[in-house]
Every structure is written in C-alpha cells, then in structure tokens.
C-alpha cells in the first residue's frame, strides 16, 4: 500500500487533495505546516510527500532542507511541491534542492495524479531491483 502525505495549510485545498488522492487508492496523511509534516514523516515514513511551500511555522523549502540535512534515511522520499508561488526563483530553489517535481496552483488533477503515479512506478521499480530503503 502506497502512503502519501499531504502538507497544506489551506484547509479547503488540503481536503480536495486528500479526497482526490485517496479516491485513487492511496492511503493519505495530512499536515498543516512543515513542523507537523516533519513529525509525521519521521513517524509514518510516507512513500511520497505532496507539499505546499508558503506555510506558517516551517515552510516547504525549510522542511525539505531539514530532511536532506538531518534525516538522511528519509532523504529519498520523493517530494512533489504544489504551490501558488509561480515565480522562477522558488521553482529553481526547490528543484535544485532535489524535489521530484514542482507544480503550481491551480493544478490539473490529472497532471498531479500522473506525477504521483510516476513516483510510484519508480518506487516499485526500486523495490523490484532490491533498492529498498
């Protein structure tokens, strides 16, 4: 069973995402900011993280950097950023840091699901090849 963490401070957006993703057959967890997300990632070890950037407490960039720097064993979890920040600077920052993808809101759910399926395919391939983390 593939598990996906949705990190999003806007309740309405998070609810829609969770609805869409869980309807596609994935198990979902939710966090409303980077700090909550970090705890959940450590505790639940999700397969994929769909993550907003502009959030209180700890934003998406900070969360991703924290995992890359201080949680090596979790650093391979693919992050798909989903944000209303459409400027190049934020996109470059996220992709350079190693994000799996960067999508801007409003997002086409077909596109979002395709990105998630792509991550799932890679994960399953890794597992088949014995590269299990």
């Amino acid at each position, binding site marked *: 069973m593939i598990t996906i963490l949705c990190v999003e401070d806007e309740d*309405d957006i998070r609810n*829609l*995402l969770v609805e869409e993703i869980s309807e596609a057959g994935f198990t979902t967890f939710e966090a409303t900011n980077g700090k909550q997300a970090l705890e959940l990632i450590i505790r639940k070890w999700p397969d994929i993280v769909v993550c907003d950037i502009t959030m*209180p407490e700890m934003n998406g960039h900070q969360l991703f950097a924290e995992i890359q720097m201080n949680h090596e064993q979790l650093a391979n979890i693919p992050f798909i950023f989903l944000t*209303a920040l459409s*400027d190049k600077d934020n996109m470059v920052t996220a992709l350079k840091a190693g994000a799996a993808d960067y999508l801007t*809101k409003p*997002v086409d*759910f077909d596109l979002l699901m395709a990105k998630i399926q792509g991550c799932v395919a890679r994960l399953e391939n890794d597992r088949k090849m014995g590269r299990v983390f």
Partner: protein
Amino acid sequence: MQNRSAAKTIDGRGDAAGLLQATIDNFPGGICVLDNDLTMLVTNRKFYELLDLSEDMFPVGSNLEGVFRYNAHRGEYGPGDPEEKVRERLSHVRRFEEHRFDREVGTGLIIEMRSAAKPGGGSVLTYLDVTVNRRAEQALLKHKETLEELVLRRTEEIERQAEELRRLLDQERHINELQRQFVTMTSHEFRTPLAIIDGAAQRLQRRRHAVTSEFVEEKAGLIRSAVSRMVDLMESFLSAGRIEHGNMTYEFRACSLREILERCVARQQSISANHRFHLELNSLPPVVVADTVAMEQVFTNLFSNAVKYAPASPDIYIAGYSEAGGAFVTVTDTGVGIDTDDLPRMFQRYFRARSSTGIAGTGIGLNLVKQIIEAHEGNISLESRKGHGSTFTVSLPLINPMLTAAGRGEAKAG
C-alpha cells in the same frame, strides 16, 4: 674679525675706516653696531632709511635709547605707556643675546631685525626689508588655507552627495524588493482561491456519474467562499488603488458598529472553522457615523489577519466600548506576534513583518485599514509581542467632523 682695530686692508692700502663705511653703506640691509652701553658705533644709510629715522637726530655716537624713546612716542611699538616700552626694549637689548624677529614699522614695511653679540661686548644689529617675502608668504599661506578649505568643502560636498546617492539607491532597492515580493504574493493570493475553485470543479467533473446532492452542495460552497475571498481581495486592491489616486469616496451615515462587527465575524467564522471568536460588544455606542462598506473592509481585514497570523491559537477576542467621545474596537489574537523593530512600519504599504514569513499576504491590508480609519477622523494603534500575539485598537469619533463639514453625508478623501 679677530683684530680689534675694526678692519684690515691689504698692505695697509686704502683707508680702513673709509672702506668699512663704504662696505656697510652698500650693504642692502640696515646695520647698527652697538657698544656695551648701547652707543651706536657704526650705522649705515639703510639703517636710517628702513627705520624711517633722521641721521641728524640719531648720528653715530648717540645712544640707541634715544631711538627707542623716539619710536615709542611716535607709536611704533603700539599702544601703551611709551616709557614702559622703552624700558622693555632696553632690558632686552642689553642682554646682547642673539635674537631675530619681524616688525612692521610705521611706514608699512616689514623689517627682519637680528641681533648678534659683538666680540668684546655690545652687539651688531642688522635690519632687512622682508616686506615682499613676508607678504608673499602670507599670501601663499592664505591661498593655501583657502585651497585647503575649498578642498575640504568640496570633499564634504562629494561625501554628502555620495551618502545621499547611497541612501536613494538603498531606498530604490528596498522599494524594488518590496514590489517584487508584492507581485509574487499577489499572484500567490489570487492563485490560492483559484486552486480551490478549480479543485472543487475538477472533483465535481470526476464524480459526474455518481454525484450526490451533498457532494454538489459541499463543492459549490467551496467555490462560492473562494469566489467571495477573491472578491474581497479584488476590493482591497481596488480600494488601495483608489486611495492612492485620491479617488476613494465615502458615504458617511449613521450605522450600527455592532451590526458591522457581527456581519464580519459571521463571514470570517464561516471560512475559519478552527477559530473561535469571542465578542464583547455590549458597551459599544448604538450609532456611529461611518461608511458601512469601508468599515466592513476594515474589520474583514483585521479579522482575517487575526486568523491568518494565529494559525495555532484559535481564540480571537473582539471588544467594543465607548470612552472619551470615541467608539473603540479592539481585535486581539494570541498568534505569532510582531518583532518590536517591525512595529513602526506595520501600516506602511507592502511592508510585511518578519514574523509573517511563511504566511501569505500582500502587505496592502493594514495600510488600507489605516487610510480608511483616518478618513473617518479615527485612529488605529497596535500592541504586539513576538510569539504572544497582537492587539489592534480602532477608534472612531462619535460625531464625525467630516459629516458636518461635507453637510451632505459624503466626502472625498485625498
């Protein structure tokens, strides 16, 4: 001159005294040789000329004291008791020491006076006209000072200009940065409700064959509240633009502040299910004079800020009371609060406090609120502690002076 017989000549040829006189007469300076009782033994023409003395009055053999007295009395040594001046000079010259000084004499010439001890007592006084040299030196000095002052002034001016340029550049950079952030955040602010609308619409499409009326109702509700969020946002931008261009018009009329506050709270509550609004409005005056639409904008902004900047602290306190001829409303949250350094700039357009990092916003809301309140002759103030939350206090006068001034219940801000 080792020999005491004044001057020597080769093989005794010529008259030694005559040659000496010829020599000293043709010396370009004045000479006066004194005995140890200050009797003038030898003088030359230049001596009398430079000191403006008559040889007849002070011939060789007379005493220098006479010259001193004569000079003192004709004011050569400056104001004061002439006899005192004479005594000073006598005691000085009697030391027969080497000395050198300049004196401007009555004729306007500057004379360099030197004294050298004469072997066997007495002294040799020499006088040189250094007027041209000294005047040149003075002029040079003055010129140098003027130049130095000029250079100093120019340097200061250039430094001042550089400083001003730096300041303007910093300001420009700061404004550019604020505007860049503003554009980024404005796009973010519009995209967020659009994402809700689009997401809800996509969810409706996906379930089109198996949709329940509850599902439609829920998604339509999301769409509608996102649309009203966009309308509020747009209204804020439009009002900010109107205020900036002096085109904002207000319709002042008697209205119930309590009703305005309750409407705004209800609206905010419907989109912030996790927050609790605690209202204490019983001591509000029943009527204030205000523009209802603008007032709703003010409180919508303050309430949505309270929610936005207190994501983890659900309690928002709103109190209304009247005091000293004014109606007061305080809006208190227990959220992220504001750094003390940021407080003075909170009502500046586009400014966003450091503690707002990670929380979406454009930086126009509080500026708009302040402008509207001030157009009502009211006031807004702010108290905050980083990490403990903020309290905004709005005060409105009970009798609006603009209403009286405009007479028609309409006034233009500008």
